[in-house]
């Protein structure tokens, strides 16, 4: 049990625990203020020649593989989330660990999904001590209600790599679900009946974990090409009937929103990029797969054609819409972090300009740079943003865990960070005095686009100047807030916060940005 009484106030005034799951923490110091040095955790490649010459590392089942890997109580077991809500492997592995009698494990997924709610039972039985990774749906509720034994630790995709590299989290056994693999452990995500595109989220696990188990439902003879995961890092290969439900791994199609209000937001974002001069030859951008983001891509694409502008690269989450841009010659490359639909999977498997990336290249804040900071513009969502442009993406306004951080925090490093949001949802205003859970510092958030107008961070005079005289509805953020509160009948009441922390939000450098408190 973690000592839950010691808190420190961080650079943005948030009270955060000084110890998390028995490990000392550094409270957030400000953007770029925490300076790491030295090599923290080296990839533990054990010198060994005890591997079969024929390369066949297959174990008959997960239980045997885990036993061979020396599973013990208290270990850290990792998994990746490229199979999203369709994943079967993480729970299969944790169940196998339970059958071996393991206790007090830390599950360290790159994200969890509602279909993995079976982990609740394993926590109740004591098999899993706590989860470090995004928590939402039933797992999020379990954590927010204070039922988890340890504190949840929410990290961005880049922050997860940073935590592994800096030795904050040491993975004992990595479980890597692989849509295709060979018996040596080379693995690929872009082919096979459960294809998901990239396997980038598992890369750090494959390199830094003590032991690595690859689990596949499509075994091919050596070599499995491309080997996104190198078999040389893999201890054991397990073949199962199915690693996941393909219909939940990728959506058949990704649909653009049809809501007129959301379309308006998307168009305003695209117009902003055009009028601010950010949309120009050789530029780059990133947008996710949400309804507004997809519509934004569609508007921007039309404007790029009208102005004969071509991007150097587009950062995915890839979808059919980005693939079409690549095929139309509107971008030289797609640098892909995860693949959301079938067209995206097909493209990454066949088009050399559609490149699978990992959080190491794209997001890790403690590598020698990462390309998130080279992206010109990024379009993101949020649940709340406050009048100082701080934003919340992890909890509802009532403090319940809602989303993981994903790449959201890492993307804030882009040249122009845009939050595209409806100004209220179900009567609940999105612009508030102070965000419930701080996930992104306002100094990195440049523009908030709502259906009622566009607010530019006063810190970005260059952007304010760039769109001066345009027909865009540029307004102070306070102004939009006031209008929305008039519509909604005043400010909402703030649910009372408990004094008991249930999770922490890490910043990209490993410092503690905020605390998630228990909600009964």
């Amino acid at each position: 049990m973690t000592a839950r009484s010691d808190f420190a106030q961080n650079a943005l005034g948030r009270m955060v625990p000084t110890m998390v799951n028995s490990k000392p923490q550094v409270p957030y110091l400000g953007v770029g203020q925490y300076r790491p040095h030295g090599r923290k955790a080296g990839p533990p490649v054990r010198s060994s020649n005890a591997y079969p010459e024929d390369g066949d590392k297959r174990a008959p089942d997960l239980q045997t593989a885990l036993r061979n890997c020396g599973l013990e109580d208290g270990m850290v077991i990792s998994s990746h989330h490229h199979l999203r809500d369709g994943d079967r492997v993480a729970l299969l592995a944790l169940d196998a660990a339970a059958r071996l009698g393991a206790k007090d494990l830390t599950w360290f997924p790159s994200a969890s999904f509602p279909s993995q709610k079976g982990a609740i039972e394993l926590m109740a039985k004591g098999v899993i001590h706590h989860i470090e990774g995004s928590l939402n749906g039933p797992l999020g509720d379990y954590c927010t209600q204070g039922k988890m034994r340890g504190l949840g630790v929410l990290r961005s995709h880049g922050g997860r790599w940073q935590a592994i590299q800096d030795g904050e989290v040491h993975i004992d056994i990595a479980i890597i679900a692989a849509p295709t693999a060979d018996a040596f452990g080379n693995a690929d995500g872009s082919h096979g009946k459960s294809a998901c595109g990239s396997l980038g989220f598992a890369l750090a696990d494959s390199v830094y974990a003590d032991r690595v188990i690859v689990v596949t439902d499509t075994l091919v003879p050596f070599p499995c090409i491309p080997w996104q995961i190198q078999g040389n890092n893999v201890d054991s290969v397990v073949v199962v009937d199915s690693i996941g439900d393909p219909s939940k791994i990728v959506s058949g199609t990704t649909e653009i929103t049809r809501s007129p209000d959301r379309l308006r937001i998307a168009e305003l974002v695209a117009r902003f990029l055009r009028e601010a001069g950010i949309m120009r030859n050789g530029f780059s951008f990133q947008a996710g797969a949400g309804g507004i983001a997809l519509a934004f891509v569609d508007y921007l694409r039309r404007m790029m054609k009208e102005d004969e502008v071509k991007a150097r690269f587009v950062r995915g989450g890839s979808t059919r819409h980005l693939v079409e841009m690549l095929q139309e010659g509107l971008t030289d490359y797609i640098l892909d972090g995860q693949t959301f639909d079938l067209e995206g999977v097909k493209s990454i498997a066949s088009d050399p300009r559609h490149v699978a990336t990992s959080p190491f290249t794209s997001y890790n804040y403690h590598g020698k740079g990462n390309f998130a900071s080279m992206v010109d513009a990024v379009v993101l969502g949020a649940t709340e943003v406050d009048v100082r442009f701080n934003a919340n993406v992890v909890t509802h306004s009532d403090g319940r865990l809602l989303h993981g951080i994903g790449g959201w925090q890492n993307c804030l490093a882009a040249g122009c960070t845009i939050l595209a949001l409806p100004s209220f949802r179900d009567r609940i205003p999105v612009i508030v005095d102070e965000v419930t859970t701080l996930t992104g510092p306002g100094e990195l958030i440049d523009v908030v686009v709502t259906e009622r107008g566009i607010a530019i961070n006063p810190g970005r005079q260059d952007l304010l100047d760039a769109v001066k005289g345009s027909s865009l509805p540029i307004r102070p953020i306070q102004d939009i807030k006031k209008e929305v509160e008039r519509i909604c009948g005043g400010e909402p009441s703030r649910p009372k916060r408990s004094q008991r922390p249930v999770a922490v939000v890490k910043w990209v450098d490993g410092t503690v940005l905020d605390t998630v408190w228990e909600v009964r």
Partner: protein
Amino acid sequence: MAEAGRWGKDIRSDLHVAIEPRDRGGLEIALESRVGPYYGDSILRQARAVLESLQVKHARVAIHDEGALPFVISARLEAAAKRAGLANGSKVLPEKIPLPEPSPRDRLRRSRLYLPGSEPKYLVNAGLHAPDAIILDLEDSVHPGEKDTARILVRNALRAVDFAGCERTVRINPLPLALEDLGEVIPEAPDLVLLPKAEKPEQVAEVDRAIGELKARHAVDRPVWILPILESALGIENAFAIAAASPNVVGLTIGLEDYTADLGVMKTAEGRESLYARTRLVNAAKAAGLQASDSVFADVADLEGLARWAEQSSALGFEGMGCIHPSQIRVVHRAFQPSPAEIDKALKIVAAFEEAERRGLGVVSLGAKMIDPPVVERARKLVARAKQTAKA
């Protein structure tokens, strides 16, 4: 027990009220709300205040809220109370926002966006899509059993919703229901009333009289224009008389679903079957010095088809048309405004005319071409219209 409004997993921005009157025991209000932690107390306070001012003293009230805004909450409470036979004809009006400028008779009317008067969720953002007018519809989009609740909701929307400078219009039901509609909405000073199924000038005169009386009674001292919708063969035959029935009529428009049904023909995308009616309507409107406005284009997904229709309609002399989805507005605006080339040419003609006048010449010429007075007149109208659209 009486009910009003809707609730459920797929309902947004509405709320359902069930009222069970009783003889004593005061007000007992139970609330379930999608936004409970944020506005639960506020909803309960508002419900109590609304019911008290409606003189509802003893009742069990169950509210299921799906994130309704305050003007919707009071509309639903009032409707339920009235259905329960309470409230004694009193109303509860939401806070009133300042009225926009009165609508000029000849204002630009390229697009009018239909909003079902029984559906709260589209109301509050409608103005953002910048149609020239919004229509709060009490007629065909409202189920006959919901006319009472829609009337109250539309009345509250006219008071409380900022339609961002759009002309605020209401489509009432045909007579005699029209009179009940007017009684509820005229005190809130809509800019214009659409009168559907208009067939005879007497109908327009009756509606005009009713509006006049209500305006006087409620001290509404700004125009409430009338736009009759002709939807039958008889209506088309009487187009000019309808146009001339009142000085408050600002234009004529047509409803093609009903018109083609009246003729017993299919409504097609080309619209050949209604060409006569539409051109006849344009002619009647112009003869009376009014605007002519086209029907709606029903296929929301087909923006190219809409553009073709609207361009043709503009060429026939219509100045605007109805929209049933915000995505249609921009296409319609583009079709009903003069192209840069047209504006350019018209400006040259007007300049040549002014030049000829200054020099006392009887004949206007542009380059080698003589220009007749009607050409100058058309050019002037086009320039005036271009100025109007540039402001919009």
